[in-house]
């Protein structure tokens, strides 16, 4: 027998917790969070560095501190959470199949579902690094878990491939543990993570960031004993003759995050080829009615604060949906990424309410102007792909402009840099 709940949230990271709390506060009676790990909080318990909550709480917090406020609130509201429970199936009728040691094999029939599975890191295979297959290659996030949760350090001499935020944060963390981080190697001409991490984690610790370089060979049969690093040309192909050998006993990978949407695919949710997440409207409803999504499962955010924010939208809408069995239909306007815009989320807006657009640029530049159709324009001193551009658009402006079927967002840049 399937158990009835009003809103089921899959994942108890920052997205899932915020969505569950919002759903409860917006009137959903029975809210259930299903989490595969042993504890609530997703990856935040292992993010022991600061920089969380600056937007959401106007306070500089660590990951566990940020998360605790949400965990406490969820507990106060009496939200039920099932831990060590894996959702193994989700269908388009919103039926959930899950298993756990404690409760065995379970089916749930929720009024609405919030997808909050977060994202995962690109593994070596996805990066296609040639060479041998020794021990000592792991993603930065897995290393972070070993160091900050399990209490182990993989090695004492590192090369980090990719300059994602977790990679740069681990460069600092491992340096503080007495290990030697020889270089962070980035194939692009710019860092993959936030400027503040580039400064605080690499520059302040004298760790070289090798832009336009990549790892072209992994050496060592049992345990890694080094990597070859080469410079790349404008097409990102290694340039012959630029190879340099770096001895190391560990290679960390921090070269991209992929929204974790295997369950969304099972449920028949339409995905955006660029974000890797579901196509959503401004309520964060997916193409399958009653299935909502928030946080990194939709788009990989720079800051957890926005993960919480986005998931609250999903949670609120899920509560409304669970109550009425549907959401008020609105003529949707498609938001289309134009010149130098990689993607915009949400992909659909009503055009009648305030909306916040999240987007990333394709190329970095100076003196940029982002144009949201004819509705509004906003100027930026610099834009770069690793820093999300976020624009709030007011309902009256949208109405005034009188939107058609599409709203194109462009970014013009005057200078490069």
């Amino acid at each position, binding site marked *: 027998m399937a158990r009835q709940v009003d809103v089921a949230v899959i994942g108890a990271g920052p997205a899932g917790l915020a969505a569950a709390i919002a759903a409860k506060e917006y009137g959903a009676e029975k809210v259930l969070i299903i989490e*595969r790990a042993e504890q609530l909080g997703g990856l935040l318990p292992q993010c022991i560095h600061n920089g969380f909550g600056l937007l959401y709480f106007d306070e500089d917090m660590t990951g566990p501190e940020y998360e605790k406020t949400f965990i406490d609130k969820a507990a106060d509201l009496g939200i039920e959470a099932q831990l*060590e429970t*894996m959702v*193994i199936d989700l269908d388009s009728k919103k039926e959930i*199949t899950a*298993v*756990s*040691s*404690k*409760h*065995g*094999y379970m089916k749930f029939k929720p009024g609405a579902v919030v997808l909050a599975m977060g994202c*995962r*890191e690109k*593994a*070596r*295979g*996805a990066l*296609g690094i*040639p*060479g*041998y*297959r*020794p*021990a*000592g290659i*792991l*993603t930065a*996030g*897995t290393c972070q*878990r*070993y*160091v900050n*949760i*399990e*209490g*182990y*350090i*993989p*090695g*004492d001499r590192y090369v980090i491939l990719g300059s994602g935020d977790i990679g740069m944060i681990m460069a600092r963390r491992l340096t503080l*543990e*007495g*290990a030697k981080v020889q270089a962070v190697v980035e194939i692009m001409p710019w860092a993959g993570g936030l400027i503040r991490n580039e400064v605080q984690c690499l520059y302040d610790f004298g760790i070289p960031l090798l832009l336009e370089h990549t790892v*072209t*060979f*992994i050496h060592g*049969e*049992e*345990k890694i004993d080094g990597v070859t690093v080469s410079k790349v040309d404008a097409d990102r192909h*290694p340039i012959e003759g630029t190879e340099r050998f770096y001895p190391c*006993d560990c290679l960390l990978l921090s070269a991209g995050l992929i929204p974790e949407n*295997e369950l969304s*695919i099972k449920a028949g949710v339409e995905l955006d080829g660029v974000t890797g997440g579901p196509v959503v409207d401004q309520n964060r409803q997916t193409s399958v009615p009653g299935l909502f999504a928030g946080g990194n499962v939709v788009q990989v955010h720079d800051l957890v604060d926005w993960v919480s924010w986005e998931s609250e939208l999903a949670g609120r809408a899920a509560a409304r949906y669970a109550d009425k069995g549907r959401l008020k239909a609105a003529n949707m306007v498609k938001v289309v990424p134009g010149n130098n815009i990689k993607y915009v989320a949400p992909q659909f807006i009503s055009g009648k309410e305030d909306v916040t657009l999240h987007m990333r640029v394709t190329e970095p530049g100076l003196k940029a102007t982002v144009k949201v159709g004819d509705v509004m324009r906003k100027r930026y001193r610099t834009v770069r792909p690793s820093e999300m551009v976020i624009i709030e658009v007011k309902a009256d402006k949208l109405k005034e402009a009188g939107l058609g079927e599409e709203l194109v967002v462009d970014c013009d840049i005057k200078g490069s840099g």
Partner: protein
Amino acid sequence: MRKMPSVETEVLIIGGGVLGAATARELSKYKVDVTVVEKNTDVGWGITKANVGVVCQGRDTLEFRPEYHRSQLLWKSIPVMGPLCKELDVPFKNIGCHIMIRNLKQKEKLDKGAARTESLGLGTDKYCSYPELKEMEPYVSEEIVGSLYDHAIAIVHPVVYTQALMENATANGINLMLETEVTDIQAGHPMFTVQTDQGEIKARYIINAAGEWVDKIAAMVGADDFVLFPIKGYVGVLDRKCGDMASSLLALFPEEPGDMNIIVPTVEGNLLFGIQLQINRRHDRSTTEHMAAKALENARKIIPDISPKDVIKSFCGYLMFRNFEIGWHECEVAMSERAERFINMTIGYPGVSASPGAAMEVVDILKNDGLKLEPNPKFKPRRKGIPDFSELSDKQRQELIKKDPRYGHVVCRCETVTEGEIVEAIKRGATTLDGVKFRVRPGTGRCQGGFCGPRVTRILARELGIPETEITKKGGDSEHLEYKTKQILEEGEKDG
């Protein structure tokens, strides 16, 4: 280093790969004292590991001429393989194979081959026009003109098959010694004296199934009257979500002899794509950007929808051919003409498919040499596989969790592997991360162990009763956690 007391055995099998394991299992049917030595931490980790698992049916009459020894071994194996896998509870799946042509000129050659197969009484393969092929395999490229369909081709996981053979062999009394590398052999009467890095072994018969190093072992007793000719292959693994892009083995008709471009489904539901390389330097299992690009390009000649984004891993392996006088490859499963009581076993292609026949042949060779082989009255042919949670029905899952709640704890998300399966793999001999991976698959999916790695490490340490810092990826020096936190700092202070 572990040292053992001196071991004496009637038959010593060198190598725990597919041939060693099949022979051990075959010999366990008899009352005879057999020891297997394997230098790795686990069985099936040599050249067996990189086999793509195709169980071929010998209908390719150019590769399998009737006069070839390997053809005879293969034909002996074909009727045995399916039932054997059933006995051992190893997934064995009939998938069929399309040999695909890209122009009508190739069709002549294809027809010739098909006629030859038929005239040899090996059955009839069906020619499929492009629309017929497309009906069966909707993702194949429009550039394919047609295909020859062989319905009998099957697949098996070579390492799982090898593990099962060895598990059953040891359950029936065979002595398996892992992490034991043979360093020297002295011939003698009536026993060989075999030196290993773990101590000395005396053996009356030696079966040399050392895979990649079969010639090196043979040379220790002067029985190396053959030259090995290694051929390197590259294999890429695609994400499970591409699993439905091919239901049968799809191979491009070779434009030149020795060309091999294939897409193979695995029993787990992934697709592999592979090419053969013109590289013959042994023991170099590294991949290069060039071969990865070439393999992907070729795979896309078969299925254009395959995207580089879907490649979750890649690896290289070898086929070891015996390069005999006429210049091409033939196998060797025979008593050496140069050393008494010394049997060489090397098949090259198709090692996995011909393994049951080769093992039976070795038993015959031993019998003919006068070794008394009486049936083992305690022989139990059946082995129960590790339950595969992801493949069970709802009801079976419920029952399994009720019996052992650890089957309700999913540790690997991508492949839906439970703690129950991991613990069972460890009970059956897995001592490393790869050992667990090759038995029950955690870490083989799209995240490649990102989520489950730390959890599998913890379960291994708990079950084996050793610290996590001693858990290795694949034995030897492959520790993946070198220090505890603060340890580097503390050691630094001590060193000043």
